[in-house]
């Protein structure tokens, strides 16, 4: 049964709890003692308040136990007390670097239950903004993974180029980080005058920035030495842990929800390539995200060429009551597969929302992945898996 009776305090490593994960066998000749090191919750490498309790033998990790929940805000409980427009504000903050992308699956679920379809223009604009938020997240990743590995400079370039995207998002929605722009049935507002031309020039900047990152970071021998062969996630193991998105594609799995799942937004009309890499190590995760940034920029340019004129909001009653039903909508968010299982009882707010966030599953593989690696490699692996604490902790 469970070990609910005798629970050691949170700051101690629960040896019994970790027994099922066999410890890495290091130093079998010299039986050196173990050292327990707390990486976090305040630590520059853990992208927020993630705590990794690692047991070290010298510089090798014997076992690792992530402790999460420092940012747990109880979203699933909160959604039971909020109306749909209020929940849109909340879920912006799950993955705060690509906020727009979090709203899309939830509102798609509500629209499905109501039987409403947003007009084509708003679908296109939603796609453009989703891809822009994907570019913004990935540019930050391309910069800060270099930072985690020791190169100070790419981080600044990543932030600098990301400013263009954030300015675009702010011009359209009013908010750089938390746009809160989606509504059930469409969008809050139309695009401002001249936005499309600005967006085109920003995409050129993004494509140039990707070339820069390819030369500066991917081409650097030391970066390659630090990331090749580090943190290999085999495809089967990754899938069984629920690792998704770029991480799984970097292990060779050809699966992208924009192409393979039930069609959403305007992805069926876009021509894009799904990138995979056979290696599954940290280098390939970086490489995949670089290619996907370029691909997203191209997709944005395609959307901008095809945006139709028209209304941006469907006819929706003033007080939105979503009829009884349940549905599951999942989308390819920048961090991975994000999904909402929405159960509605006909009220103005949902009955139960299960938020399936990508980083939760991505981080759950850490106890398996970190056995036997060096401490610097722990940092590299954390950086390459690219999680956001709000996404893990909800």
């Amino acid at each position, binding site marked *: 049964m469970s070990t609910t009776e005798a629970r050691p305090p949170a700051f101690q490593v629960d040896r019994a*709890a970790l027994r099922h994960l066999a410890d890495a066998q290091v130093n079998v000749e010299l039986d050196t003692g173990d050292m327990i090191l707390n990486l976090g919750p305040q630590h520059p490498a853990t992208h927020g308040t993630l705590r990794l309790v690692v047991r070290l033998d010298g510089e090798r990790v014997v076992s690792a136990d992530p402790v999460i929940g420092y940012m747990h805000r109880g979203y699933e409980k909160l959604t039971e007390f909020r109306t749909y427009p209020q929940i849109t504000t909340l879920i912006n903050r799950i993955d705060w670097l690509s906020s727009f992308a979090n709203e899309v699956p939830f509102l798609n679920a509500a629209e499905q239950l109501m039987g409403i379809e947003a007009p084509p223009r708003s679908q296109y604009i939603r796609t453009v903004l989703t891809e822009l938020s994907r570019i913004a997240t990935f540019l930050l990743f391309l910069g800060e993974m270099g930072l985690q590995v020791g190169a100070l400079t790419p981080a600044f370039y990543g932030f600098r180029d990301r400013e263009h995207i954030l300015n675009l998002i702010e011009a359209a929605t009013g908010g750089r980080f938390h746009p809160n722009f989606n509504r059930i049935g469409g969008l809050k507002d139309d695009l401002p005058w001249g936005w499309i031309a600005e967006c085109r020039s920003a995409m050129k900047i993004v494509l140039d920035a990707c070339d820069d990152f390819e030369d500066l970071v991917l081409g650097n021998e030391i970066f390659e030495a630090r990331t090749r062969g580090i943190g290999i996630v085999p495809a089967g193991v990754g*899938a069984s842990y629920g690792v998704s998105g770029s991480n799984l594609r970097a292990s060779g*799995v050809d699966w992208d929800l924009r192409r393979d*799942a039930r069609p959403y937004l305007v992805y069926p009309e876009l021509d894009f390539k799904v990138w995979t890499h056979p290696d599954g190590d940290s280098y390939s995760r970086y490489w995949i995200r670089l290619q996907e940034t370029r691909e997203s920029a191209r997709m944005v340019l395609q959307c901008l060429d095809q945006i139709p004129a028209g209304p941006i909001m469907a006819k929706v009653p003033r007080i939105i009551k979503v009829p009884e039903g349940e549905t599951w909508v999942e989308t390819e968010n920048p961090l991975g597969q994000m999904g909402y*299982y929405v159960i509605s009882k006909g009220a103005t707010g949902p009955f139960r929302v299960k938020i399936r966030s990508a980083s939760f599953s991505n981080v*759950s593989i850490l106890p398996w992945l970190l056995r036997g690696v060096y401490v610097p490699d722990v940092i590299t692996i954390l950086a390459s898996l690219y999680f956001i604490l709000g996404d893990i*902790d909800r």
Partner: protein
Amino acid sequence: MAEDTPPDTGDVDVVDEPNPEHDETVAVLRDRLGAGAILDHATVFANLVVRVAPTAWRSAAQVARDELACDYLSFISGIDWEPAPREGDDDSGDTSSPVQPTETTYGATGSAGRWQVFAHLQSTSTHRALTLKTDVDDTSPSVESWVPIYPGADWHERECWEMFGIVFDGHPALRHLYLPSDFEGHPLRKDFPLLARVVKPWPGLVDVEPMPDEPAADDGGGEGAAE
């Protein structure tokens, strides 16, 4: 599905066009687990939801992984079908907080009682998707653990236990995931209150202060009837 006005009442079982892949999935499950193990199934907005008997929970996962190529575990979580605490009337026009119905209904595939555990599996190769549900006994909520089959179930089951109190048999170490180790209670249960509401009950739609040049709004919402 492109309608302008929403349907009046919700249909519990919204069934799309017959889906041969879903039928095949249900047939395989029925074949391997026995006809008595499949209590109900439905296709809801192109998602297949299958409710299995509690004794067949782990074997259903085994069948899904081995026969249906569902190698990807999306999530495992729980549902508490008891009605949510009510915060107002249906007719008040108060849009600041949802007013949940007080009758208990059980969703697309029904339920034997208050608790259910549900999980979503997918196949990375054939892109097949499957939602499995099972009932959990009220008095001693306990369900078989999926950790031997999907190692990723570890964290999902820890979260489900900590939020609902549903114990997973065979889980190696059921301990708190998000909450501190000494936390008492299971927050996602409907009888566990939202603490913000305990501190201050929801005031409803309060009068909105007018802008400097506007006259005071007469019926800018009115006092909420939530008390």
